[in-house]
């Protein structure tokens, strides 16, 4: 018994009626995933606001300890990466695998740049004894709940950073597939899906940046 290899660029999978239906279904699944992302980070934002209301002085002290210039730099880097990702999706929709590949590479470079800045921020905080764990905390806090602020900071930016890492892995997968010209005008669900994911990561940072660094 042999199975016929489906060329995804021109054929839909057998359990769908058309390429359009397959595409819409895949995209809807990605949006459902995006909704769970919003709710997961939403719970952490709730924690941020709750403790900010309760321990306002510590939130002011903590916010002032973070370097808003590095935060602003990373914001622009992420916004630019979102821009190049949107262009990668656009080129794939037009059927230009090679051009899309270039934009995905730009996006990945930005993702690494973001992590490099984050690395310097994290090591700086750890060096000053601001990492909230046993044996690593040695900072002379002016307010009682500064350590709680740092917990919220590391958990929220850490989870966001993990999302960046996963995004990089996904973009390497896209690069391989774009290099093999696996996408077409009618089949680009994977590129669009990774694009949606990357934009959500950017969207979360849009809220994280002012709340952590500027308030």
């Amino acid at each position: 018994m042999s199975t016929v290899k489906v060329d995804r660029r021109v054929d839909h999978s057998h359990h769908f009626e058309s390429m359009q239906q397959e595409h819409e279904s895949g995209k809807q699944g990605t949006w459902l995933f995006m909704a769970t992302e919003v709710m997961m980070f939403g719970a952490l934002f709730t924690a941020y606001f709750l403790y900010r209301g309760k321990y306002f002085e510590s939130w002011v002290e903590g916010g002032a300890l973070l370097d808003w210039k590095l935060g602003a730099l990373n914001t622009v880097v992420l916004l630019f990466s979102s821009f190049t990702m949107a262009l990668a999706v656009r080129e794939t929709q037009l059927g230009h695998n090679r051009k899309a590949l270039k934009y995905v590479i730009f996006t990945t470079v930005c993702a690494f740049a973001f992590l490099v800045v984050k690395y310097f921020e994290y090591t700086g905080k750890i060096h000053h004894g601001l990492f909230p764990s046993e044996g690593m905390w040695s900072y002379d806090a002016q307010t009682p709940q500064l350590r709680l602020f740092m917990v919220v900071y590391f958990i929220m930016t850490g989870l966001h950073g993990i999302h960046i890492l996963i995004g990089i892995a996904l973009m390497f997968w896209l690069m391989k597939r774009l290099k093999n010209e696996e996408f077409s005008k009618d089949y680009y669900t994977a590129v669009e899906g990774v694009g949606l994911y990357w934009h959500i990561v950017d969207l979360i940072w849009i809220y994280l940046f002012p709340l952590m660094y500027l308030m």
Partner: protein
Amino acid sequence: MSHNHIMPFKTNLTVFLSLVSLTALTVYTAKFVDLGSFNIILAMMIASVKASLVLGWFMHLKGDSNMNKVIIFSSFCFVALLAGICYSDLFFRY
């Protein structure tokens, strides 16, 4: 495919430049204009405008199906519900 929403290069660029400008506005108002407790509300308002730009244009939600709009909108509603009920506890306990 009939539902191909291809965003022109120029539109993408305009959205990107708007996002950068709004970031500059966020930094300026938060760091150099003292509005007291209104500062955080303003920052969240600007962030929400930026989020709408990302959702509507970069994520193509503007021309997308109503189902996808409802899915993502509902997630924001659930977060508002969670945050709203939790935050009210700060004011109404005791």
